């Protein structure tokens, strides 16, 4: 954070990525995007000019770049109260009308939330009734999500969250530890489809009963948040649910009046109008 990067340089980078690689970061929130860029320059030991050159010349560098650019800090059962609300209120409500249903994890990162959901569904005894779709922009992170293996040092916080979530067993029952890594039971992902999807430029691809997109849109500016929320609205069945991060809000967006607040504390909304 000692050096700085000029807004014009940021624009040159986003324009090149857009024209050359077809990703649009032009409406990302400025300060976090700037920090990510400075981080990439530092990690890869590049200047703005050499970064532009590599983005232009190398066909594979873009994947490496995306993996560093996207924020992949996540936890299992982050905000345990949110997961309790899903288990005790939201999913039972969906089950009243549907024997089977679809969930979309939009911006799934390294998969911790998908895994949390899979455990939740298994403990509710309904994992065979639910199809999960997990998408992310970053191919590298999708591969990591599929592998369901994480550094052991992460397990402590995940276990604490699971205990506060009041799960049925112990998180350790779902994984085994070996050589400083914890690997979860791959069977948990039996009903999960991973695929690459771009929230900014991608189309609506399916209809869902529940969409989770927590702490993803915080990296977008308000105009882009508004556009993405329209896509989520179109991707939900009527009376389906949308969950966003605890410090995100629908108040400002165009589709706000088509949703009802289902749980204000945990930021879960119910679609009530097409």
């Amino acid at each position, binding site marked *: *954070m*000692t050096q700085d990067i000029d807004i014009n340089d940021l624009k040159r980078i986003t324009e090149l990525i857009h024209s050359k690689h077809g990703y649009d970061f032009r409406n990302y*929130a*400025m*300060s*976090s995007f700037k*920090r*990510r860029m400075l981080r990439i320059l530092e990690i890869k030991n590049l200047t703005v000019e050499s970064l532009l050159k590599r983005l232009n010349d190398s066909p594979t560098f873009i994947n490496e770049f995306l993996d560093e650019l996207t*924020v992949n*800090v*996540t936890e299992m059962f*982050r*905000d345990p*109260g949110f997961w309790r609300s899903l288990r005790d209120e939201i999913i039972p409500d969906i089950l009243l009308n549907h024997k089977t249903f679809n969930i979309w994890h939009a911006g799934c990162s390294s998969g911790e939330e998908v895994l949390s959901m899979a455990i939740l569904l298994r403990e509710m005894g309904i994992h065979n009734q639910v199809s999960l779709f997990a998408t992310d922009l970053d191919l590298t992170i999708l591969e990591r999500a599929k592998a369901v293996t994480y550094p052991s040092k992460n397990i402590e*916080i995940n276990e*604490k*969250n699971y205990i*506060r979530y009041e799960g049925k067993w112990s998180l350790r029952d779902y994984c085994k530890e070996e050589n400083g890594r914890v690997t979860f039971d791959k069977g948990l992902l039996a009903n999960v489809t991973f695929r690459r999807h771009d929230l900014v430029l991608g189309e609506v691809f399916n209809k869902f009963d529940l969409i989770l997109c927590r*702490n993803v*849109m*915080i*990296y977008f*500016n*308000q105009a882009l*948040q508004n556009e993405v929320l329209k896509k989520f609205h179109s991707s939900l069945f009527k009376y389906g649910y949308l969950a966003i*991060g*605890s*410090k*995100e*809000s629908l*108040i*400002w967006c165009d589709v706000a009046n088509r949703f009802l607040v289902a749980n204000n504390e945990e930021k879960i909304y119910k679609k009530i109008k097409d």
Partner: protein
Amino acid sequence: MIGFNLNTGYKAVVIGGSAGSFQGITKILSQLPKTFPLPIIMCLHRLKHVRNGFVEALSIKSVTPVVEPYDKEQIKKGGVYLAPSNYHMSVELGNYFAMSTEEMVNNSRPAIDITLSTAAYVYREKLIGILLSGANRDGGLGMKHIKDKGGLTIVQEPAECMIDTMPKAALALTKIDYVLKTDEIVKFLNELDKLYR
């Protein structure tokens, strides 16, 4: 009493603090004039997985209720804001907040350096930065950025701090305008308030 060199050009006050700063913060917030004309933006180290309680505890004594803003929430004059637990909080051009869950900085999320540095970038010489007691170096660099952009910098008198690592880090990195006890910080903010009336 120190004579403060003040003007009415300021747009915001940012406050950073960590271990041992809670008392100082509550003192400042409880003796702040109701009419205080600037937003107060606070980034305090806090328990990562306790989402509730802290803002309520601060609000009990505060003249103005303390809020943990939403992502992209506009910053209002007279608002008192606290960085929410487990998020970094930035100030953006256009005068609003942005949250992020990026990696910890200085072992902290929220990191004081992030809030202070982004505020310095947006408000430049129109910013007042205050750094209180704390057990790590987070905030030192942010104070340097405030000073480098021409803003006004204040640290809590290290002798008064429960743990003085944080203000000392700032003093080592940049020239600090005022080194003050909590009571003097309160006086400073009250004098500033009078100027705006």
